[in-house]
């Protein structure tokens, strides 16, 4: 499973320089041809940090209320990374429940699962979230000065 380099894909999505979450969501909406909704979900989250659910006509990103703005944005970017990565249609051994599994467990009260720790996809989307944080935190231009950096 060869995943594309994160900085290259981030540049393709947002170009050089700075960006905002709204811009990223707008571009992903065009790529996925579905609206993306961010939903703050106040129920019990346990150890989960955020998740996304794709429906026929939309994609919802759920995240818990957080005191830390940075962490909240990071968790959302992580899920947006999943959406972006899936848009490449690379055959991935995703740590997700397949459609068959979802159908099978549709009536379940709860579902637990275990995936391979430190999965490459999770590492990719986490790197994506870090890259996005750099692009959204930068005040003017994310291009470092070749003499002063």
């Amino acid at each position: 499973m060869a995943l594309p380099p994160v900085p290259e894909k981030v540049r393709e999505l947002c170009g050089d320089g700075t960006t905002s979450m709204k811009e990223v969501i707008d571009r992903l909406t065009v790529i996925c041809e579905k609206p993306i909704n961010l939903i703050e979900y106040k129920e019990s989250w346990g150890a989960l940090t955020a998740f996304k659910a794709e429906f026929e006509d939309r994609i919802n990103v759920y995240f818990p209320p957080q005191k830390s703005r940075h962490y909240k944005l990071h968790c959302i970017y992580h899920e947006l990374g999943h959406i972006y990565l899936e848009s490449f249609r690379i055959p991935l051994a995703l740590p997700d429940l397949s459609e068959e599994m979802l159908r099978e467990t549709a009536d379940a009260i709860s579902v637990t699962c275990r995936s391979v720790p430190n999965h490459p996809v999770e590492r990719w989307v986490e790197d994506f979230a870090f890259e996005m944080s750099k692009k959204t935190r930068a005040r003017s231009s994310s291009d470092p000065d070749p003499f002063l950096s």
Partner: protein
Amino acid sequence: MKLLLFALLSALCLLRIPSVAKVTESRASWLASMFGLTALYILGTVTPLEVIDSYLGGINVTNLLQAIFALLAIFFFNDSVRRLANVPVRWTYYAPLLSIPIMIVSFALIEDKAPTAADFIDSRMDQLATATYSGTYMLALLFTVLRIIYMLRHKARGPYATFSAGLLVVAAACSCHITYVVLFHFSPWDAFAQAIGSWFDRLFYLGLSVTAAGWLILFLSKQLPKLRLWMIDALWLTALRIRINADQSRVSPAWDLFNETLENGVYKSLIVLHNYQRGNMTMFPESVQGRISQIEAKLDAQT
């Protein structure tokens, strides 16, 4: 003046090692300072010229090497300015490098190259090969320096004014040397030519020293406030990550500290610590949590 320039470039090279590892864009300018240092070293600034040249056959190959290294230093400096000014690469970008083979061939054609001498060029200026070698070197330098000044024109009033000022002096030095070569070789006014040529050393090293000093002052004025702002927090967060085993690898916290800018390293540590709290469904003691919140507020204020 050569020693001053050597000291300035050494400081720049050493202080910028961490950023060279992290920031791709800073590598060309760092290479420029490294090539500049090497050129000055070969010139006998630290080790006597005779000693260095004796390892290379005692036929003034050091002169050729320092010329090539100086040209490469200016070339990589030019590349950084090109990035700074967002100028696309054209064929003229590589043109100065074409002078290197011409310099090598004309140097090889100089007769009686021994013994090692600081005035190797002046004492052999009556030879066409020397005039070609020295003239080509200076033309390539002048071309590159003028292009740097041209690319810096929009930034010259800003923090890079010292670059433009210093390089203008370097351009004047190169022009003096080219005039000297032309007049000495192709006119009867040898004494006049030598008088003009004698200005080269003074102007050249003065101009480069002004540029390097401006660069060092700019660098320090930008980096010191950042270090003051983030260093303690970055070290504290890294230590916390290591102490509580927040990462799968014990190397990760130290790697992030080295591999990222301080601000990005602080951000990464904060995320790792939040992940740790979530994953283990735990909360840090109030004092630790308070400090993390303070650092986040600081990060917010910077955004």
